[in-house]
C-alpha cells in the first residue's frame, strides 16, 4: 500500500492545522498508509494521534509526503529536500517576518526562512493546495502554478458535540454581568490584541456600554502578553480577562455566550475562529486582513484595515445595541457556515491525490 503521510511543524488539539491534517488523514486512510507526523514532539493533548517526525518511515519515490507549510525551519527544509517521497504542499500562509523583526529576531528569521523554503522545495512539489484565494495568490508569487484552492479538513462545526460548561458560564456571568466581547486567537503580535483592548476601553468610556472583553488563546509570546497586560493596567476602562490556554468546552461556552466575536488581526491566511463563532451563533465583527473578507463574506461586519479603533468600537457597539442587526448577522453566519460546508473539500483533496497514483 503506498503511503501518503503528512508533516506538520507543531501539533496540539487546539491547533487548526493539526485538526485539518487529522481530518485528511481519516479520509486518506481508506486507500493509503496515512499518518500525521509533527516535527516537534506532539503535546499531551494530541499525543498518540499525531506521531513524532523521527518515527516517520522512509518512503519511496512513488509515495507522497503532504507538507503543511506555515513556518520555516532549516532542518525541515533539509529533510524535505533529502527524502525520496514526492511532495504535495498545503499552504496555510506564513506570517510576514516584519511583525517580529524588532521584538523577536529569531522568530522573524524562521518566518523569513519559511518563505525561502517555498522556493527551495518548489521543484520537488508535484501538487499544490492553498486554503484560500489569498493564500493561493501569495503562493503563486513563489513560482507555483495550478494551485487548488481547497480549505481541506476545515470543520467550523467541530464544537457541535462539545457541551457548554455551566460552571464556566457561571464564572463568566459573575465577571461580566452585562456580557462580553470575545477575541479568539493565539496571543501573537500580528493578531493585534491591543486593538481589542483599546476597543473595549472606548466601548465603556465613549459608548457607555458596561461590557468586557475576553482574550481567549494560548500565550505564544510572553513579552507581548506582558505588554498587553501593561496596556490593560494603563487603560482604566479596559475590563479584560485573559484566559490563556483553554479547553474545547470552555471555548464552545465562550462562542455561545459572547455578545459579539471580534477579530483584529493584521494578517490572516484563512481565519477559522470567525467561522467557528458563526457556527456557534455569535455575530462577527472583523478587520479586513488577508483572507478574512473572503472567509466571512457578507455574514459579518468587515471593518477596513485602514479604519481606526473608533470605527471598530462603533461597529461592535452597533451590533450590541441593535438587536435586529445582531439577529440578522447570526442568521447570515449560520447560512455562511452551511455554504462553506456545501463543498466537500476533503473528498476533493483525496480525489486530487488519487490522480498522482494513476
Amino acid at each position: 500500500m503506498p503511503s501518503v503521510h503528512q508533516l506538520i511543524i507543531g501539533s496540539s488539539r487546539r491547533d487548526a492545522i493539526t485538526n485539518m491534517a487529522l481530518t485528511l488523514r481519516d479520509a486518506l486512510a481508506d486507500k493509503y498508509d496515512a499518518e500525521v507526523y509533527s516535527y516537534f514532539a506532539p503535546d499531551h493533548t494530541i499525543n498518540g494521534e499525531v506521531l513524532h517526525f523521527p518515527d516517520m518511515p522512509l518512503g519511496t519515490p512513488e509515495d507522497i509526503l503532504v507538507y503543511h507549510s506555515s513556518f520555516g525551519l532549516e532542518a525541515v527544509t533539509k529533510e524535505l529536500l533529502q527524502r525520496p517521497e514526492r511532495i504535495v504542499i498545503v499552504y496555510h500562509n506564513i506570517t510576514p517576518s516584519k511583525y517580529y523583526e524588532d521584538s523577536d529576531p529569531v522568530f522573524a528569521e524562521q518566518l523569513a526562512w519559511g518563505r525561502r523554503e517555498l522556493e527551495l522545495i518548489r521543484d520537488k512539489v508535484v501538487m499544490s493546495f492553498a486554503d484560500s484565494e489569498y493564500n493561493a495568490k501569495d503562493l503563486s508569487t513563489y513560482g507555483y502554478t495550478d494551485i487548488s484552492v481547497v480549505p481541506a479538513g476545515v470543520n467550523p462545526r467541530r464544537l457541535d458535540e462539545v457541551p457548554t460548561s455551566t460552571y464556566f458560564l457561571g464564572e463568566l456571568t459573575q465577571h461580566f454581568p452585562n456580557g462580553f466581547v470575545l477575541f479568539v486567537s493565539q496571543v501573537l503580535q500580528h493578531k493585534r490584541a491591543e486593538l481589542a483592548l483599546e476597543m473595549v476601553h472606548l466601548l465603556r468610556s465613549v459608548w457607555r456600554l458596561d461590557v468586557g472583553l475576553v482574550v481567549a488563546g494560548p500565550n505564544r509570546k510572553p513579552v507581548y502578553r506582558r505588554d498587553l497586560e501593561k496596556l490593560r493596567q494603563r487603560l482604566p476602562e479596559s475590563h479584560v480577562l485573559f484566559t490563556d490556554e483553554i479547553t474545547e468546552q470552555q471555548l464552545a461556552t465562550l462562542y455561545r455566550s459572547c455578545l459579539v466575536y471580534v477579530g483584529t488581526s493584521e494578517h490572516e491566511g484563512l481565519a477559522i475562529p470567525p467561522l467557528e463563532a458563526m457556527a456557534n451563533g455569535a455575530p462577527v465583527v472583523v478587520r479586513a486582513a488577508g483572507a478574512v473578507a473572503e472567509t466571512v463574506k457578507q455574514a459579518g461586519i468587515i471593518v477596513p484595515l485602514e479604519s481606526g479603533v473608533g470605527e471598530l468600537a462603533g461597529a461592535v457597539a452597533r451590533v450590541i445595541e441593535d438587536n435586529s442587526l445582531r439577529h440578522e448577522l447570526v442568521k447570515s453566519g449560520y447560512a455562511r457556515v452551511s455554504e462553506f460546508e456545501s463543498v466537500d473539500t476533503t473528498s476533493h483533496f483525496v480525489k486530487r491525490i488519487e490522480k498522482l497514483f494513476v
Partner: protein
Amino acid sequence: MRLLRNGSNGTLVRHRKSLSKVGSLKQVDIEQVLAEIRDDVAKKRAEGSFPPGLEQELEAEFQTILSYTKRGITDRAAEIERLAAEVRHNNHEITGLTPAHSRIPGMSIIHRIVRRVIARHTMGLAAQIRASEESKVRLLEIFAEQSRAHEDADQRLVQNLSKHVLDRVAVIDHLTILVTALEAKIRKLEESK
C-alpha cells in the same frame, strides 16, 4: 442581556434545524451599516463625547510600551533583581576555606594543617567580604525598586502630558467650530441688513 445560544448538551442541532425553517434570509447591507457606523463615530466626535486624538493617544500608549520591548529592555528592574539574587547565591559560597586535596602524595595533610592554622584569619576575611557583598545585594535591591518606580512615574508623566495636550487641542477644535458658527451668524446679519 445575556443569552446563551445553542443551549447546551446537544440542543444545537435542533436549534439549527429550526433556523433552517426561517426561510430566505434578509441580506444585511453591510456597506450601508458601515456607512452608518462611520456617521455615528463622526457624530460622537463632533459632540465631543469622543475626544479628538483619543485613538492616537491609545495607539501612542501601546507604542511606548512596545518601544521598551524593541530596545530589548524587557524589564530592567527584573534584571537588577536577578543580579541581586546571583550575588546573594555566590555570597553563600565565600567560606574562607580552600580545598585541601592534592595530587602529590602527603600534600593533602600539609594543606589541611596549613588551612587549619590560618583559618582564624581567612574565615574572618570571608566574613568581612560576605558583609560587603550583602551591602551590594541591598544596593541592587534598592536600584530595582527605584527603577520600577521610575519607569512607572515616567510613563504616568508622559501619559498626563499627552492628555493635557490633547485636551487643549480639543478646546481649540471646539473654539474653531464656535468661531465658524459665529462668522456664519455675522454673515447672515450683514446679508439681512
